[in-house]
């Protein structure tokens, strides 16, 4: 039996599914095309949603070896960013921004990165506020199968995506597992000629509803702190239900969507080759997930709190930053520089993956904005001044790109705040104490 979505009401449709009647929905072919300018879907005229990536790496770059020497239009990167040359016109570089601690201690390898992600310098034993990606996903992620995707190229579950109250969105450490999650049996190809909802999903959703109906009664049983945790549980449950709901609807066609090949298993470990490979595979899957509308937000950790090694070398990246003296002839730590080149190369890999998927006249990277940050400005001393940060991609025309902006010690929060403003979040100010800002970096807002 064939039926178009116009002929079957949603209720009738689901009842049919549940009763085992195969309900097949045909796809109007004209929906599959971009408009003449290649900027919007022909069927609706709507521009596709922007995507957001948080790409965090560890240990920064050698001071003086990354930012362009001139402000304004970028003509040349510092030596450690040479891998980013192909994307020069799509990158904004921010130098001179710092994490401001006020009277708090510097929690090494944490204060810098959490300040730029949460707007608040962290304190030991105090829960972090929500990270920027969760604020962004509350706008961009409500109508996708996954509100956000978290990955860690180090292979660990460690994640820098937090909802507040200690709720961490754990990361996938294995590309195969991410593939299964995104493109396994539950993936619905938006461009398939026919759509048959899975009756089991209807039942799964009903079972979740039974649990969700307990919310009010159970919430009334616990104290304030536990109520927040239970609230998180039910919020997560609701998101799972919404994800199932989306799987029951015929997805809008997305002409650039294609299912990627299943990645190969990756060896355990965190040597530079393994990490680069893992990051490449994650990046490709995320690019396809964006193109296929599975999510609009991704959190990627490259080597934050990871012992990145070179095969056969007793020292890892972190040890080198503390144990390698600065070579006075060249003015920097040469072994550390080799690892830093790897980080820039890995970022270039991610940008390449996003840029490789064409969408009309642009690419997935063009409709994305990638926030890049790190934990330190000078790793040897755990310094948190002049933390390297970038915004990459125009977010579908929302940002100007190709600029080097420098600040005389402004808080790193200005960069995150600018990203949120550009993506259209209704945020009047962001951050706390000296990191609070209401000043976007207007030079990069389109």
């Amino acid at each position: 039996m064939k039926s178009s979505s116009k002929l079957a009401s949603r209720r009738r449709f689901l009842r049919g599914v549940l009763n085992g009647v195969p309900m097949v929905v045909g796809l109007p072919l004209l929906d599959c095309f971009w408009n003449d300018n290649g900027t919007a879907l022909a069927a609706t005229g709507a521009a596709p949603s922007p995507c957001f990536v948080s790409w965090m790496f560890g240990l920064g770059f050698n001071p003086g070896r990354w930012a362009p020497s001139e402000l304004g239009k970028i003509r040349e990167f510092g030596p450690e960013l040479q891998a980013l040359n192909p994307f020069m016109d799509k990158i904004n570089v921010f130098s001179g921004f710092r994490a401001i601690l006020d009277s708090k201690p510097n929690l090494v390898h944490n204060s810098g990165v959490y300040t730029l992600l949460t707007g608040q310098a962290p304190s030991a034993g105090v829960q972090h506020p929500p990270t920027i990606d969760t604020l962004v996903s509350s706008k961009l992620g409500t109508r996708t199968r996954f509100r956000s995707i978290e990955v860690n190229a180090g292979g660990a579950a460690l994640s820098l995506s937090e909802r507040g109250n200690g709720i961490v969105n754990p990361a996938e450490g294995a590309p195969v597992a991410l593939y299964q999650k995104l493109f396994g049996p539950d993936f619905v190809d938006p461009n398939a000629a026919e759509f048959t909802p899975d009756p089991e999903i209807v039942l799964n959703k009903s079972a979740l509803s039974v649990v969700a109906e307990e919310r009010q009664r159970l919430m009334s049983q616990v104290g304030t702190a536990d109520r927040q945790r239970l609230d998180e549980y039910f919020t997560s449950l609701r998101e799972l239900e919404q994800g199932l709901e989306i799987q029951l609807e015929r997805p809008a066609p997305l002409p650039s969507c294609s299912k990627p090949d299943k990645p190969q298993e990756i060896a355990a470990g965190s040597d530079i080759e393994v990490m680069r490979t893992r990051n490449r595979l994650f990046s490709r899957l995320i690019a396809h997930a964006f193109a296929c509308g599975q999510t609009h937000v991704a959190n990627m950790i490259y080597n934050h709190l990871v012992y990145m090694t070179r095969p056969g070398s007793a020292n890892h990246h972190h040890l080198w930053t503390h144990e390698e003296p600065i070579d006075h002839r060249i003015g920097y730590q040469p072994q550390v520089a080799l690892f830093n080149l790897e980080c820039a190369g890995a970022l270039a890999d991610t940008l390449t993956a996003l840029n490789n998927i064409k969408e009309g006249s642009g690419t997935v990277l063009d409709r994305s904005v990638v926030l890049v940050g790190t934990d330190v400005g000078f790793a040897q001393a755990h310094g948190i001044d002049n933390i390297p940060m970038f915004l990459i991609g125009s977010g579908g025309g929302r940002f100007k790109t190709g600029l080097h902006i420098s600040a005389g010690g402004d808080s790193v929060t200005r960069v995150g705040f600018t990203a949120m403003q550009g993506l259209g979040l209704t945020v009047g100010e962001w951050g706390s104490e000296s990191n609070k800002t209401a000043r976007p970096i207007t030079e990069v807002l389109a």
Partner: protein
Amino acid sequence: MSKNRKSRVVIVAVAILGVAIAATVFFFAPASSEKNRSLSGSAKMADASLRRLTDTQYRQIILDVLGPTIRVNGVVEPGVREAGLIEVGSRRASVSASGMAQFHALAKDIAEQATSETNRNTIISCVPKAVDAWDAQCGEQFLSQVGRLLFRRSLGPAESQAIFAIAEKSATASKDFYKGVGEGLSSLLIAPQFLFRWEIPQVARDGTLSLDALSKASRLSFFLWNSGPDLLLLEAAESGALDTRSGLREQVDRMLESPRLEAGTRAFFIDMFQFDHFHELVKDAQIYPKFSAQVINDAEEQTLRTVVDHLLVRQLDYRDLFTTRRTFLTPVLGAIYRVPTPSDKSIGMDRRWISYEFDADDPRPGILMQTSFVTLHSHPGRSSPTLRGKALREIFLCQKVPDPPANVSFTEFNESQNSEVLRTTRKRLEAHATAPACAGCHRLTDPIGLAMEVADSDGSFRTEENGVAIDTTGNFEGTVFSDAAGLAEAIRNNPVLPSCLVNRVYSYGTGRAVTSADRSAQATLSDSFAKNGYKLRSLLREIALDDEFYRVPPTKSSNLMTVQAKATKQ
């Protein structure tokens, strides 16, 4: 405000207070029957507190409730370690969106396995009248039984009805009884009543707040077995026996004699020793070609076998774990330790473990020199006295080594270095500690860690590093030693060692960090632990029988309610 209005306010306030007191007495009355409990019924119960199940608890419950044929094919959302224990962090853990997706996937997979043709007849005790339709009698019987074990109490009427309804709906739609049972089981496995441990207070005899009987059963069971209560314990709680001294003693003694105590003991030491980090452990394959996934598995198992044998089977002094020469080895570990062991071929892969005793003069006694500790606290490409010293102090002595300082001046360090390679770790550390801000903490960690340098990053034994003899001399809290055996002896004799275990065991059971308010109770427990010869089983029993263990710490609201309850009693 007019006089009349003031009077009305007073009347309303008195009325509210009266209702509040009445409600408090009702809510906190000892709940011995299922209908009094708000979680399963309709009455409101204030200030229950929650602990989310850990990965090991989830697995153990599935094993205990559904049997060994069911596999947990995935990882539960990781917990956060606080005060040295993930169990303490479980009071803060919730369920993220991806964690929920994982719980859902696990629930579906477990339900599918349990209702598969292979397993259904052993797991589901009844047989439906027909497999292509819902059989309410059989389906509801199974879901009620399994629900009681998963929720750690009987399901309330509304809960039962909801679960039965979804099971029936699923069975009818799919024309498959077992699909329906699976959907019902899946709902139970994702419910917050299962994924969180609900600790519900009641007013104790002395007017303070204590756990109600079913919460007490649950605390006891997770403490000793790392799992939910069995039917006997649930019955003791529901009958009120667990609220009596003799009833509690009977259950505690039964549980301490149960084979399930081994699983509980293993879970505690996995948490205390931070063995969850084995998931992330890697070594450089070029530098350590012998190190493999099998070494990782065997290293963890070696220490757990040593602990169980020493503390439960032989019932020996906890402190002697640090000097014992008795352990268990596999051929893989034999290669790491460089000691002769029978090959896999000669003993068979299924019986790879042999008991082994190191020679009296071997410099690697005790669990600190086992592969588990030295590999977990090393870098991928080399050993680390600093990481080992820090871990020793934090894990076994409950001390906090400060985090590295920030904005340290490395000028002196940078100036003092030259291209000549410093050949031993001791020399490198001495050079690194030239920064005064670093030296303070390195003095706490490095001397004890350097004694363990005979164990390389992969655990293998060595006497030289880069052609230079390893210097293992040092000093721990005033005791001078010449090697790792001397260090082990010094650790073993340090009075902080057993009191740290008391601290960790107690925190593990209550899910709360020990604070200064617990100092007196902790001292009493430590004294008792000493008097009983530092035997783990006696410590567990002492804690499990102590009223304080079930006490609910006062909060602002619970203080008010306790006062009100006391006032009402009078």
